[in-house]
């Protein structure tokens, strides 16, 4: 058991990779489909268990360091030397927060896909790519090495693009996948160039060691600009958001939540860079304001584009951009006051709490919404809201889940969206009232947009063509109900969640010194 805890950071990334390698082999045999499903679920339950014990471990002992290939996992810096040489996994509360989010969503997506994908071709490769995407996201969340971060970023984008283009018989699917991979490749190359710049100056690649040395030279600032640009592209911030609606719209349902989660791991990487890598050594006010502006633009433009969409998934994708703006707004406020201890204690911490809490909330309810949209697509074969109507009679569960998701995204109590949005509103109000008013206005428009779609989709006269439409199969309902349960639980007990997983994550972000010390502590 102790060994399991010690090696869990490595195993959590290693196991899904190996599962992805084995899945094609299993599927070759007779009764491959059944064996594959059982195998995936056994492996994934074990991974879930590992994530849980690692989370508990990090909660009690603090930052966990795992050095690959050293004599001891904790031996980040070789004996008698002053810089880390090997690849390090550094798991702090923020990483664990992302890990929990990703793992829950992936579990729901896997259960949902069980029936959703039945009868389709190429399923062995499909599940293989899903496990690879999961492994890459966990690696991104855990890694403490810049180049390793780049490698996992690339795995995530290639697997995501392959999944997004899965329905190759539709032209828009391939195009959505192509946009995703082009954007990902360009942003990943920018990250690689930046790694070159940082490596040239300090001759280390570990994030902690870089953070130890960075002092804000002109080259450092150029690197920060390039990194921030690359990650903003990947997380679909507004000037460069064009890929997101296309890709989210076309990806098969089980994978849309995962691609969404992948873009939030890029957001995590952005926070890692701004807080952990640069936080303590440069004045972050300007960067904070840039993040705030990108956030506000995303909120506003996303919601305005969403209102007039007729494709239900496309509408949700634009809302995803808009909700991403809330997270950037919250954390951006925190970043802007990072050097001001009074303001930080007063409202900065709450703002970051809200921004981070919104990540998990948004991933849950947007995943639920995407799943309901695909459930409708699954039964009636169209995503056009004008062609729908009266579906609530036949698809009760889907309608209920849609309502839960819609209320959560609009910030109505007692659902989870309300809890995080309230934190953001309050904190931002103390920072700059105008921003808070914009955020509330965007929330109202969101509510209006989802109400409109609800009426045109689920209520109204029943279309004759859809008289025989049945409720979706059980596994899809189970997948959605896991997320719905999480949403309601988070909405009812926000204090509990904030105290146990969100506030430690905020502390981990703000407290740069402990992140550095976990690796460089022994160095004189």
């Amino acid at each position, binding site marked *: 058991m102790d060994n399991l805890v010690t090696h869990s950071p490595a195993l959590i990334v290693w196991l899904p*990779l190996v599962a*992805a*390698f084995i899945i*094609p082999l299993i599927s070759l045999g007779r009764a491959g489909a059944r064996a594959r499903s059982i195998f995936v679920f056994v492996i994934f339950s074990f991974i879930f268990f590992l994530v849980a014990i690692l989370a508990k471990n990090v909660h009690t002992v603090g930052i966990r360091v795992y050095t*690959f*290939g050293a004599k001891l996992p904790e031996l980040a810096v*070789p004996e008698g*030397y*002053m*810089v*880390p*040489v*090997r*690849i390090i996994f550094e798991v702090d509360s923020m990483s664990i927060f992302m890990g929990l989010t990703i793992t829950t969503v992936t579990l729901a997506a896997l259960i949902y896909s069980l029936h959703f994908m039945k*009868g*389709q*071709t*190429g399923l062995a*490769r*499909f599940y*293989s*790519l899903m496990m*690879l995407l999961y*492994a890459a996201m966990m*690696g991104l969340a855990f890694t403490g090495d810049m*180049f*390793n971060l780049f*490698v*996992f970023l*690339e*795995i995530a984008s*290639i*697997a995501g*693009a*392959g999944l997004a*283009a*899965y329905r*190759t*018989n539709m032209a828009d699917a*391939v195009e959505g996948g192509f946009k995703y991979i082009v954007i990902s490749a360009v942003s990943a190359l920018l990250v690689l160039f930046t790694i070159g*710049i940082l490596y*040239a*100056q*300090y*001759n*280390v*690649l570990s994030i902690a060691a870089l953070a130890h040395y960075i002092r804000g*030279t*002109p*080259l450092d600032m*150029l690197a920060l*600009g390039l990194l921030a640009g690359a990650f903003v592209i990947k997380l679909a911030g507004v000037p460069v958001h064009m890929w997101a609606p296309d890709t989210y719209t076309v990806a098969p349902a089980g994978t849309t939540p995962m691609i969404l989660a992948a873009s939030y791991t890029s957001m995590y990487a952005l926070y890692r860079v701004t807080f952990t890598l640069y936080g303590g050594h440069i004045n972050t006010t300007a960067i904070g304001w840039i993040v705030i502006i990108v956030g506000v633009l995303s909120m506003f433009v996303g919601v305005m584009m969403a209102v007039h969409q007729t494709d239900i998934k496309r509408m949700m994708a634009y809302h995803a951009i808009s909700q991403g703006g809330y997270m950037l707004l919250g954390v951006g406020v925190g970043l802007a006051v990072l050097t001001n201890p009074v303001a930080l204690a007063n409202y900065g911490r709450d703002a970051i709490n809200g921004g981070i809490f919104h990540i998990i909330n948004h991933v849950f309810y947007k995943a639920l919404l995407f799943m309901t949209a695909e459930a409708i697509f699954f039964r009636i074969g169209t995503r056009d809201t004008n062609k729908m109507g009266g579906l609530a009679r036949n698809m009760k569960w889907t309608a209920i889940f849609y309502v839960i998701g819609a209320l959560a995204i609009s910030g109505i109590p007692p659902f989870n969206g309300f809890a995080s949005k309230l934190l953001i509103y309050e904190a931002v109000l103390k920072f700059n009232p105008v921003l808070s008013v914009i955020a509330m206005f965007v929330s109202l428009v969101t509510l209006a947009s989802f109400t409109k779609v609800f009426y045109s989709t689920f209520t109204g006269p029943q279309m004759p063509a859809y008289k025989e439409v049945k409720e979706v199969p059980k596994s899809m309902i189970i997948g959605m109900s896991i997320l719905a349960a999480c949403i309601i639980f988070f909405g009812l007990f926000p204090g509990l969640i904030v105290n146990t997983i969100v506030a430690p994550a905020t502390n981990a972000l703000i407290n740069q010194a402990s992140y550095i010390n976990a690796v460089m502590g022994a160095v004189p």
Partner: protein
Amino acid sequence: MRRVVGLILWLVLIAFLMWGVLLIHPFGYPPSDMDDYIIENAQEQTGNNNVVASVVFDYRGLDTLGEATILFTAVTGVLLLLRTQKHKEENS
């Protein structure tokens, strides 16, 4: 109009990149803490003459696992996208 804005942004980016790379250490004289450690200790620690291979497989082994995984992912993706879809048409 968009083209002009794009051109200006591109020129700014180029200028920044040029300015940036000129600030880097002179070509041929890099700082080398980590690399010196590896060059000195690779033979003893990995029992291997080829220091680059030591870095690739031992010191940065996880990157190579990731790289192998990327190749696997791309092959899986390519074969997934170029799959036969006859089966599906029969079903639907």
